């Protein structure tokens, strides 16, 4: 994996309340799930905000394209954002 600039981190590591701009999705071309994630709006350039994590730690709630959804940290780890 190429070295990340300090402002890049995975969505799983984005602190609650912080916003990021998506730079890259790490997914194999035939990863049907990640394709679905992209279809749901997780595309480069899109803003995403971490809202909170579930009381038991997983999954996390994020806000993107004016709607909220929850995603497990293991999947969020494949989405890379630049904090803004």
């Amino acid at each position, binding site marked *: 994996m190429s070295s990340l600039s300090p402002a890049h981190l995975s969505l799983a590591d984005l602190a609650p309340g912080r*916003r990021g701009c998506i730079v890259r*999705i790490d*997914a194999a*071309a*035939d990863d*049907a*799930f*990640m*394709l*679905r*994630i*992209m*279809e*749901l*709006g997780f*595309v*480069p*350039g*899109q*803003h995403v*905000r971490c809202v*909170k994590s*579930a*009381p*038991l*730690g*997983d*999954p996390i*709630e994020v*806000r993107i*394209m*004016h*709607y*909220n*959804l*929850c*995603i*497990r940290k*293991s*999947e969020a780890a494949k989405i890379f954002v630049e904090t803004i």
Partner: protein
Amino acid sequence: MNAAAPAAPTVRPVIVVAGNPNTGKSTVFNALCGTRQRVGNYPGVTVEKKIGLARLPGAGSADVVDLPGLYSLGAVSPDEQIAADVLMGRVPVSEDRRSREAVHRPDLVLFVLDATNLQRNLFLYTQIAELDLPVVVALTMTDLLGGARMNVDVGALKERLGVPVIPVIGRRREHLDNLRAEIAAALEPGCAVTPELTLDFPAPVEAVVGDLRERMNDQGVRLSGFEARNLLLNSRHPLQERIAVTEAGDAILNDVRAKVRALDFNPSSLALARYKWIDGVLAGVEQREKNQAGEGRSSSDFSSRLDGLLTHRIFGLAGFAGVMYLVFQSIYTWATPFMDLIEEVFGSLSGFAGTYLEAAPMLQSLVSDGLIAGVGSVVVFLPQILILFLFIAFLEDSGYLSRAAFLMDRLLGWTGLNGRAFIPMLSSFACAIPGIMAARVMPDPRARLSTILVAPLMSCSARLPVYLLMISAFIEPHFGAGIAALTLFIMYGVGPIVALPFAWFLNRGVLKTPAIPFVLELPPYRWPDPLNVLWRALEAAKKFLMRAGTIIFALSIVIWAMSYFPRPEAVADNIHARYDAMIDAAESESAPVELRDDPESTDFASDNVSIVADLRTERDNAIASAYLEQSYLGRLGKLVQPVFAPLGFDWKISVGILGAFPAREVIIATLGIIYNAGSAVDEESDDLKSRMAAETRPDGTPVYTPLVALTLMIFFALCSQCMSTLATVWRELNDWRWAAFLFVYMTGFAYVAGLAVYQIGRALGYQ
């Protein structure tokens, strides 16, 4: 591609209603069709097909098919797959009345668009637009725009999309009239408007797409741009198997995929291209008030504030427990008066049968003890099913269920399931049948399968009477009310404690369920449409009645026959010989009729009258019990008793257990008969309890000790004793072998657990 074919006279036009989940599709559908709707099935899958009839201005009408909500034609669940298949014309939506030919192409797509969530909603629109179908857009949630501090220029939207866009709010007359008018206009031959859009896909990819489509066309396989692009990207995509691919086709696919890989393009560029187009459409059309962070407000501040509470670290879980408690309480408490009413009705029916069929005792028994009692024991659950489904529909439509799945996902994730599985499991605490049906929301078939296979382990309401009987008769007297309550709680806990590890084993070990990604939208909280909620509850209740009713009806006859035949007269004669002498003696001692007016004598007379009546009842109960012992069921009980001996059960308990296999509730009545208390007992009968407590084994020790009671309850908790559940599992999974597996594994668990409990108890010195 040609425009929509004009509606042939023998076929009503078919409209399909498509859109994202949570957009109010069902409300639009209900408003269009009213009560003229029914539920059917798509061939080969258990997804429900909702079809209605819409009356259009100008004396026309159209069939309307409400498709399951989907986020993209690249489906990930069976529900989404069916919706995508219908849209892409791979599944028939109707048939020509005259020629009986299946009609594959819908005449119109009614696309439901949520005004507060345009950006993501339009993604699906861009895909549907590639299918060359006429589209009319119903714009919902426009009344929530104010609360979201946003504005949508409907006219501009209509212009940009190029198709009719009609705001639709609930049941507002003018909106519906507009919608109907636009639909009618769109169905006019030659007037349909097909969306046109140009998407900016990377040119090299588009070249390969074009190549693929051309070559597959030569093979006789027609692919839309959408399908071709998806096939290119994803070799594990469901489309691969569904499109008939020959060896030549396979070679073509491998070739184009290699080309794409050589291009080294980013898969997100396809999604990006669509969203770029959407941004273009929405510029100037959608205006949002920005907050300090520069983002648009959430579509309801109320929602985020409520979530501050409901998904809070502490209050969220407490709130969840509160809601679950409320659901449970309502099922047990509010349902009771209705259940009592049903029991009374069936009791009266039984009485009528008794009177009218007195002349034919066998027929009377069949109808009364077999059919009415059997079917009645299932119908009695109807109020609980209704209440449960009302709650589920309300919680789902309001948006709370996604929050609950969000909270519970961690608890379920380690087993290979996910947060969505908790509703089927929760429902199963009332009754496994709606729980199993509710598993349809799970996208991954293997996770759905394991959910369905462990849901029946949850202690359903039919087990409760057994728990109550055993605990009140044999635990509470020895250990007090506190331990009794704890025992009940533990019995309920047995279900999840066994189910979760077993689910883990099923998923990881047997089914090799892939780690399922879990992504769930958390829609804004909304007031559910009451008619929608009611309709869904009624549909579920109807299903329950029909499924349980047919199987139980058949089985009631079988069980009745096994407990009725053979009926050797000699048995009754013996008992008659014993009792009749006593009854005659008692009767002859009763005072003559004239003395009944004398107060003192009345007591004496009525005493005797009641002695006679008691003797008669005792005699009849003894006869019933003796017949049962002689019957096939009784003999079977004695036959299998050695199997149950290591669990501490005697032959009478074995008969009870055997009789309960088709339906658990039956055991109480069976025990009633065996212990001469009559069949009209319930779990509160002191008569039954005292008789059971008095039962002794050949060596003089009591049959029912707390240990035996506990063993029996644990056996009952885990054993598969519900034909309706097995039938439902069969139907939901389209495979009898899973139902058989369910039966075998649960009964096996029950036996082993019962054995362990009893033997360990004995080893520890208990009786």
